[in-house]
């Protein structure tokens, strides 16, 4: 469970561009939730993810992950329990290392990176099997450098690598936004499979309203650092893209654009 309590976050404090994004923001993410987060640019979606992961500091408030206040915990330590896939497919893999080497590293997450062989031979069949679930034929390209793969292939690998180790939370930061519609569909279906299979608590930021409605059990719409819509269960099932768009327009009108 992730709890955000009374979060304050201001960007560019003391400058003319000072922007107070979060003011007394609170949100509870329950175990087993698959939350889709939508909202316009600058509404605080990605900032929220960055605060949870520790990529950016908060001004005040509490972030509690599995009962522990992580405010003083460094970013890299938080990733023991969190897996994250970024919008840019290049972020999740090492381009000048091979597919096999990338898989082996991901497999070792949470364990010691010592002087034992980087790629344990015994695990290779397991990596092949995992890669074959992607249906991209990567299992036959184990020694190809990841940099030579397409964006979609790299994103699929990033997703796979993230979910190889025992994590509790999956953070998806517009992870289909840089992909073509068909690949985006594939990655989204794969995401859903992995989330269900591993029972991961998931937060997915997306600009794709269809995805946000189709996947997950809860939907949040962010606006100027607030969750202006938070629906789940039946209420979410009955919502439509028209409803969401109408709400979007209403917000825009209120802002005077």
């Amino acid at each position, binding site marked *: 469970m992730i709890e955000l309590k009374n979060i304050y976050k201001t960007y560019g404090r003391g400058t003319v561009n000072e922007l107070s994004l979060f003011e007394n923001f609170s949100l509870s993410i329950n175990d087993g939730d698959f939350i889709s987060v939508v909202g316009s640019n600058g509404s605080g979606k990605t900032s929220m993810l960055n605060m949870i992961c520790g990529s950016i500091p908060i001004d005040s408030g509490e972030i509690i992950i599995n009962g522990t206040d992580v405010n003083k915990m*460094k970013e890299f330590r938080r*990733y023991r329990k969190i897996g994250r896939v970024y919008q840019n497919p290049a972020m999740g893999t090492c381009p000048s290392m091979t597919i096999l080497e990338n898989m082996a*590293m*991901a497999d070792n997450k*949470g364990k010691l990176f010592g002087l034992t*062989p980087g790629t344990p031979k015994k695990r290779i069949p397991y990596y092949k099997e995992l890669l074959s679930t992607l249906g991209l034929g990567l299992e036959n390209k184990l020694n190809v450098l990841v940099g030579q793969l397409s964006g979609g292939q790299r994103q699929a690998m990033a997703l796979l690598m993230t979910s190889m180790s025992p994590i509790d939370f999956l953070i998806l930061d517009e992870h289909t936004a840089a992909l073509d519609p068909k690949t985006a569909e594939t990655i989204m279906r794969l995401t859903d499979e992995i989330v269900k299979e591993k029972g991961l608590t998931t937060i997915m930021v997306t600009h794709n309203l269809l995805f946000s409605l189709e996947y997950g059990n809860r939907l949040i719409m962010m606006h100027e650092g607030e969750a202006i819509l938070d629906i789940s269960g039946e209420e979410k099932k009955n919502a439509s893209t028209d409803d969401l768009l109408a709400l979007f327009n209403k917000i825009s009108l209120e802002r005077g654009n």
Partner: protein
Amino acid sequence: MQLLISVLEQGFIYAILALGVYITYKILDFPDLSVDSSFPLGAAVTACLITKGVNPYITLPVSFFAGALAGLATGIIHVKFHIRDLLSGIITMTVLYSINLHISGGVANVPIFSNENIFSAFPLADKLGKFNTVFVVFLIAVFAKLLLDAYLKTKSGYLLRAAGDNATVVTSLAKDSGTVKIIGLVIANALVSLSGCVMCNQQRFFDISMGTGTIVIGLASVIIGTNLFKRLTFMKATTAAIIGSVIYKACVAIAISMGLKSMDMKLITGILFLIILVAGQFGGKGKND
């Protein structure tokens, strides 16, 4: 013949340095200027130990360790104090200049001509005759290369490569990419210092200014090696760096044999490096990097 042997001797000595520079420049993408002082650091430690009558082979691990400390300093300055990479190296380089002088006993030049060194103490020295030095140097360079290759295949080595390639991945693996960078700098400067140790053994003196421009030699070797052999995928980058170092020394030797004086050494070093960089731009075209 004598020229060839001398080129190979120098080439293999600087090859050890090139292996270190390969780690910082190619793997970590870190322009590490501390090299200019960790090279003479190894030599200073060596001269100090040898004049005290220590077994010359002890100088190898001790210099290696001393260089590791220098790398640790640069790493901590960069990672923990958040000083830019270039400046971190410059700070270590400057500080080490004085430390090197302290180690050498406050003098800028320590001759060890009359003392035993790793070459004269080599068991096969008599049999190998004039090939003795080049043989020993070759052994050390190859040993260092194989050790580095083996390390880069371990889990820790993977992490080092990942840190230079995409630090986000290291963070995602719940590892501190800063620590990994420090480890890389430690190994790199240890190798550079080892190279300085072998150099001191070979030329039989330590000189405080022997490190000036070392980074240029190291970079030139790595760039020549990796550019020349980048189409040969079966060749390891570490092998390429060693060959690059020999080629570079050969170029310098040719330039000198064409009538340039030894005082023009740094001039040649710099201009050759420039030529290599420019040539690399043209050679690199059409190849996606």
